[in-house]
């Protein structure tokens, strides 16, 4: 096989330390007649042109480039080979600049080492195979799971590029948590006002025809991989047609059955047919099958009688299963709050007038259970409110991380309380105060300068103890300096740690997507790729990945969309790098060791043939399975055992 060795002098960077003539002589001893050329700068346009010409003129079949680190110019030289009509994988680089010339003091020894390394590369390159990139057709559409801020933003961005988006939401309403909040930090923008334009775009905007919104739905199965997933989606019956319903709410009043309303944290009642809350979108009610008299076999249909539109209420609605092909999946299912009952010293669930921040948000919402009025259980305005920060956050006994958003909404509460009931005493019990960012300081300063606000820092949340005394609660505390005291609070607001959503475990299993030590979906890289999961083609947006505020969730949604728009391009096939693992099924014993070794879940098992199969799309070419296989049945392309052993053999000769 005619092999050409191209020795880059790199100006004097290499040639000062390594004697090219001696290298040539040492090569010729082992490989008589080998084609050897020195070039001033191979990476230059001129240098590349000269090598290209030389390759063609001399019918070179294998190439060794002795130059700098392959981490710098391997791709450059691979393209050069392609231009010369050679398969780019028929080349081996020798890093004589960074790893020999620049680090070896004696010229003789540097030359000797370079010769040895080049000989070993020549020996290796004989075994190189002409590898081909594969191309597969892709589906550019996406499945977005969760219709909160992050999911909405992602869906809208992808739909805006003309692709189809299937937007799956488990509840009957879109907009996530912030749409239920009257005002949002840092600048007291009204939650529904901020999100409604976005939701209107999703439902009726320019690209709405590209978005298939499935509420009350969940993803039950996903098969396939990046570029070609098939998802099964199960949708519960809503019993109201989102398209014909005009949202007039005439059906609600006649309904004879009531229950607690979970959309208002069970703080008020709703009917069997209801809207989650006033203004909820999509603007159509849903019927609770278990409560509805008609659906339970009784005689009623009062809602249908009251409905001014024909066929808007559909008692014959049933569960549907959809199957959709998509190229990528975005998880945007949001998060939950830590159960405050796990801190019994705070009295939540036992004593009256103690609420989580989420419950308090509903109190303050004008479409909430108290129409936006802050009232104690007795129906009076509280004269003192204690806000407990860091409930379960930054706490080795509960959640070690800081939830990042609580201080900011606590200061928002301070502001809203002051506005709603001026003169109310507010106590902030906190472990740490966290207010980063260029906008967040304003609410902080406002709270700090409020003469009715008192800040008490504790070292450990166990140093707080809440007991009920008459209509008021008493908080006994020991502050960080060890000083003890107590305050009365007519109402307590607890700021619980942000935790993974309850369904993330189930969804993680369906998507085979890893979760971190806390249960949040695990990102590919905390800083470089926090919007990518560890599975190629599955992206993360919003608090399913980590506690974060709306700004970050929106940005992450955009980032996820960006990966999809640049990775799955309409009209372009997906290129699959050939440096990956290949199973020789004749040798495969079916032991499945490789499946456990693969960090990308790229290997599956054919139970019929009892053989392992590598998915080319998911394989990243690390070669971990190749080393793991006890039968040597997996070949690591471009890093085969034979190639590596040839390199070792010659280096030690």
């Amino acid at each position, binding site marked *: 096989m005619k092999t050409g060795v191209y020795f880059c002098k790199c100006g004097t960077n290499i040639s000062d330390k390594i004697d090219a003539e001696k290298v040539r002589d040492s090569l010729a001893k082992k490989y008589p007649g080998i084609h050897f050329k020195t070039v001033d700068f191979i990476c230059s346009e001129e240098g590349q042109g000269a090598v290209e010409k030389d390759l063609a003129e001399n019918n070179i079949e294998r190439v060794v480039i002795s130059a700098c680190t392959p981490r710098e110019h391997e791709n450059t030289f691979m393209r050069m080979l392609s231009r010369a009509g050679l398969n780019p994988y028929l080349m081996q680089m020798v890093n004589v600049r960074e*790893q020999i010339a620049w680090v070896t003091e004696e010229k003789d020894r540097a030359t000797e080492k370079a010769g040895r390394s080049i000989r070993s590369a020549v020996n290796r390159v004989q075994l190189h195979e002409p590898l081909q990139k594969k191309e597969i057709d892709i589906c550019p559409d996406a499945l977005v799971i969760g219709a909160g801020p992050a999911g909405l933003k992602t869906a809208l961005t992808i739909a805006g590029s003309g692709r189809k988006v299937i937007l799956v939401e488990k509840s009957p309403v879109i907009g996530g948590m912030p749409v239920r909040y009257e005002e949002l930090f840092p600048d007291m923008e009204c939650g529904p006002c901020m999100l409604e334009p976005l939701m209107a775009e999703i439902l009726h905007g320019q690209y709405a025809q590209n978005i298939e919104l499935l509420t009350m739905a969940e993803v039950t199965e996903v098969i396939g991989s990046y570029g070609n997933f098939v998802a099964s989606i199960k949708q519960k019956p809503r019993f109201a047609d989102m398209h014909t319903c005009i949202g007039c709410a005439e059906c609600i009043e006649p309904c004879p059955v009531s229950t607690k309303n979970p959309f208002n944290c069970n703080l008020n009642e709703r009917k069997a047919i209801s809207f989650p809350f006033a203004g909820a979108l999509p603007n159509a009610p849903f019927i609770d099958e278990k409560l509805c008299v008609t659906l339970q076999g009784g005689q009623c249909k009062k809602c249908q009688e009251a409905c001014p539109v024909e066929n808007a209420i559909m008692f014959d609605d049933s569960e549907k299963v959809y199957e959709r092909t998509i190229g990528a999946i975005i998880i945007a299912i949001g998060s939950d709050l830590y159960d405050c009952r796990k801190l019994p010293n705070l009295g939540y669930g036992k004593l009256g007038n103690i609420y989580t921040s989420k419950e308090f948000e509903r109190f303050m919402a004008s479409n909430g259970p108290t129409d936006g009025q802050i009232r104690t259980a007795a129906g009076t305005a509280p004269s003192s409110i204690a806000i407990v920060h860091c409930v379960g956050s930054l706490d080795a006994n509960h959640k070690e991380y800081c939830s990042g958003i609580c201080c900011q909404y606590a200061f928002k509460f301070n502001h809203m309380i002051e506005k709603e009931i001026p003169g109310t005493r507010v106590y902030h019990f906190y472990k740490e105060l966290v207010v980063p960012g260029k906008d967040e300081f304003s609410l902080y300063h406002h709270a700090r300068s409020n003469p009715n606000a008192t800040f008490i820092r504790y070292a450990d949340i166990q140093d707080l103890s809440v007991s009920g005394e008459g209509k008021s609660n008493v908080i006994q505390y020991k502050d960080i300096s060890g000083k003890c005291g107590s305050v009365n609070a007519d109402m307590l607001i607890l700021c619980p740690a942000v935790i993974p959503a309850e369904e993330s475990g189930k969804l993680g299993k369906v998507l085979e997507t890893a979760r971190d030590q806390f249960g949040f979906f695990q990102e590919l890289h905390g800083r470089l790729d926090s919007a990518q999961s560890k599975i190629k083609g599955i992206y993360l947006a919003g608090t399913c990945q980590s506690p974060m505020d709306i700004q970050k969730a929106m940005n992450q949604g955009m980032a996820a969309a960006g990966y999809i728009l640049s990775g799955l391009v309409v009209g372009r096939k997906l290129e699959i790098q050939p*440096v990956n693992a290949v199973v020789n099924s004749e040798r495969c014993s079916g032991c499945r060791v490789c499946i456990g070794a693969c960090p990308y879940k790229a290997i599956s098992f054919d139970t019929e043939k009892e053989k392992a199969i590598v998915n080319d799309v998911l394989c990243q070419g690390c070669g*971990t399975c*190749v080393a793991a296989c006890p039968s040597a049945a997996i070949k690591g392309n471009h*890093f085969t055992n034979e190639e590596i*052993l040839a390199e*070792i053999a010659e280096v030690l000769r």
Partner: protein
Amino acid sequence: MTDNNNFEPKIIGFLCNWCSYAGADKAGTAQTPYPPNVNVIRVMCSGRIDPQFVLKSFEQGADGVIILACHPGDCHYKEGNFLAVQRYRLLLRMLEPFGIEKERCRFDFVSAGEGDKFVRLITEMVDTVRALGPMKIPAQFP
């Protein structure tokens, strides 16, 4: 020890592309000199390093082998370095019965920024193997 002063050991270094190989390049760009006794074999991930590569190296005359991986948690391929550590630990248990001192086979972590650490590890490795003297290829090598 004095007998080995003129002995130049041949050492094979298995480096993963993303961290330790980049660390070696970093030593290069900083032009920090180190002994030229280690010949580097680049693999994409330390998880690719088959223990047989190490045994073959010894069989074919290597006086030492050094395996360098990404730091725990930094692996470009998520967890290949953990498998590499596990394999290294098992491998060490195989070396002694063959009469190969375990000091001849070293494992460590080098990040892309740790050019200095790379130089230190290589220098130490060369000193260690030089002190041990040439490999005596065991009779019952597989």
